[in-house]
């Protein structure tokens, strides 16, 4: 492991007696963007606030550069050199854009780089209230970066913005962070956003980090059923495991085994893992269809199994009740969970 800016070791955080973060443990690489994702109330924002110094740790420790923080040694937020970007932007309403960005800067020129890069030059003297949501978030980002943080913390930075802006600003922020070379933790409840901006993603549930890995790995090979379902549409169909392969009504495939063996397993299938071909008799029939624009989502009743969802190109139009042949087209080993296992 090379020099890392942030290491979190067995961190737990509690409000009163209520433990909201349980033994979270990870290290942030140089210049890495880590996205923390999970449902509302899973503790992801609390992790962020604790790193920023707004909440004290209950147990475990946080290492930011040379600083070592634990329950006994609280370091106040202003000593941590962390940049914090809020969901509601938190721009000082009594200061204009430039004054916000220069808040504690001695050398005012240093901020110009970020003002130019984020296209804020025309708004230098505007008050924050007069800006649009996207502009506000750019100012907040510029303000944090201009103060040369060792680490950036972004708490749902896009959730107060409208959908069209979200996807463009997402890439803009990622590019700026990469240019600055500052490592960042990006908290979001949107799994698609998490997977697209994170070098790695951490999936949290009820205060615990369920899985931390590259987005591809988490999506394709989730550690448990929760991660599987949270990151995208997930179907579980029964199968039998033998010798590293799994047999289902849809045939034999390589298996990737996570928790326990046992011959009886559930196999994870994503709607894109399968194809549909009109066939008679085939192995199932179309129960319903949902047109999505670029794609179509079909519900298919398998003759010898459960209903599965299959997503295909929008050009492939099939009538309800038509018989079809469902086939697994995924190349990767299929993730299996032992039958009846929780999580």
């Amino acid at each position, binding site marked *: 492991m090379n020099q890392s800016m942030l290491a979190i070791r067995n961190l737990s955080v509690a409000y009163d007696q209520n433990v909201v973060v349980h033994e979270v443990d990870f290290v942030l690489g140089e210049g890495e963007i880590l996205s923390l994702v999970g449902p509302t109330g899973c503790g992801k924002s609390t992790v962020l606030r604790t790193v920023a110094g707004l909440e004290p740790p209950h147990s475990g420790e946080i290492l930011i550069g040379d600083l070592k923080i634990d329950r006994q040694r609280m370091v106040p937020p202003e000593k*941590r050199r962390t940049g914090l970007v809020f969901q509601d932007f*938190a721009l000082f309403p009594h200061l204009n854009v430039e004054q916000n960005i220069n*808040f504690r800067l001695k050398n005012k020129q240093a901020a110009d780089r970020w003002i130019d890069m984020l296209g804020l030059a025309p708004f230098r003297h505007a008050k924050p209230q007069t800006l649009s949501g996207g502009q506000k978030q750019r100012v907040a980002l510029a303000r944090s970066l201009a103060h040369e943080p060792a680490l950036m913390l972004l708490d749902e930075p896009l959730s107060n913005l409208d959908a069209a802006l979200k996807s463009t600003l997402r890439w803009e922020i990622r590019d700026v962070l990469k240019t600055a070379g500052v490592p960042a933790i990006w908290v979001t409840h949107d799994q698609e956003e998490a997977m697209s901006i994170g070098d790695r993603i951490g999936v949290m549930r009820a205060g615990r980090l369920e899985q931390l890995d590259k987005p591809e790995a988490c999506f394709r090979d989730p550690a448990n059923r929760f991660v599987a379902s949270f990151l995208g549409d997930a179907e579980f169909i029964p199968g039998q495991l033998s010798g590293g392969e799994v047999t289902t009504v849809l045939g034999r495939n390589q298996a990737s085994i996570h928790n326990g063996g046992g011959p009886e397993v559930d196999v994870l299938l994503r709607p894109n893992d399968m194809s549909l071909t009109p066939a008679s008799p085939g192995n199932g029939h179309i129960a319903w269809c949902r047109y999505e624009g670029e794609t179509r989502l079909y519900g298919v009743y398998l003759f010898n199994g459960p209903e599965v969802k299959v997503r295909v190109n929008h050009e492939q139009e099939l009538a309800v009740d038509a018989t079809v042949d469902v086939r697994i087209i995924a190349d990767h080993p299929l993730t299996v969970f032992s039958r009846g296992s929780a999580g």
Partner: protein
Amino acid sequence: MRHNTSFWLSVPIALAALAPLAVLVWLGFSAELEFSGRTAEILLNTILLTGLTVLTSILVGVPLAFVMAYADLPGRRFWLAALAAPLAMPSYIGAFAYFAAFGGGGELETLLGIATPRLEGLPGAVLVMTLYTFPFVMLTTRASLRNLDPSMVDAARVLGLSLPQAMRRVVLPRARGGIAAGALIVALYTLSDFGTPAIMRLDTFTRMIYVEYNAFGLERAALLSVYLLALVAVVLWLESRVSAERERPGRTLNLYVKPGHLILLVAIVLSILMAALGLPLGMFTVWLLREGAAGFDPAYAWNSVHASLLAAIAAVIVALPVAYATTAGRAGRLLERATHFGFGVPGIVLGTALVYIGLQLDMLYQTLALLVLGYVLRFLSLAVGSIRSRAERIDRNLVAAARSLGASPAEAFRRVSLPLALPGIAAGAALVFLEAMRELPATLMLQPTGFDTLATYLWRVYEAGYLGYGAIPGLLLVLVSMVALVVLLSGEERASL
């Protein structure tokens, strides 16, 4: 953290705010506890004045509330503000004017040749108190009527009730909470009022406390104060038990008013306003024309401004930590409650307690400092409330953002919290200043010898019987009151944004 600092600063402030209570109870019990026939008479007078004022305020305020809530009047906001205006006038101004206007040799007879009966005692006090307190009932009742679900009125009318029947049987019972809330404020205000019963020569607790104090019977004054506080406590307890109805707010009734009714309505509202505002203003203007500035020394106005300004500055400084402690949590809110004490307690009672404290600490007695301390204790809650309502609406993340940018707690407070709270601080200071300008009883008891203010000069004029000399202080006090109303209304407007 900031909250801890403000919290620990607030504890001694809250204790200081409660000190007068402790002094009074101790003093009152060290006097010979006796409940003579005389005390019973004072108690009866106080209860009669309070009860009758509450009753007449309801009789005037509730019908007006119905009209203001449901009638489709042109310029409804203006009517409402005009009808609320009497609240801003100190009732002693009204009592002074009514005392001078009526009776043999009164101004009505002198000017217009109309013989009127003398207005004093219970009827006079009830009339004046009603004129200046009925808006409390009107405002709370109106608020509660506006909260009611109007579709029930529609339902009642579809079921065959006429509109007045529907109002009486369906709406009125559900507005009881609002009426009760207003009635209790009127009761509290009447119990505490010193000027009106004093000028109308009705022996209530407040008047007798002052009489005892002037007769060097400080223990007796304290004992009467404790009795009065007990009455206040009963009203406050009742107040805490009244809960206002909360129904689904939606559209409210908007009833058409026939032109004939509208004219009648205008006549009623105008006559109320004439009685509450027009008569005093007219009296003072007549005197001004007749007597000019006779007897008036600009030093009185300067003394008022001087003492009130000091009080406003001191109150704001003391209020800041309390307001911030309040936003921090339960314990902080408890401390804020303590600062309400001074506002809930009658000014004459607070004065009694502070005179005693002043006598113990020799260096304070008869000083400007003691007067300012009295104002601060009495009006601190206004400053706290004004700053708190502003501070509460400041996004907490702003301080977090400042800290994460490297600002220390002190710097974050100075550069972010303080500038953002500034409008609240200014409004709080203005309120304390204007209230202190008008305060009569506490000023009477705590003024240093020879330090007359506008309010105390008006009192001396009354005591001496040269009523005509009251023109300038009276008009200035009315002006101050109107400015106070504007500050208060604009503060509410901001809060509702």
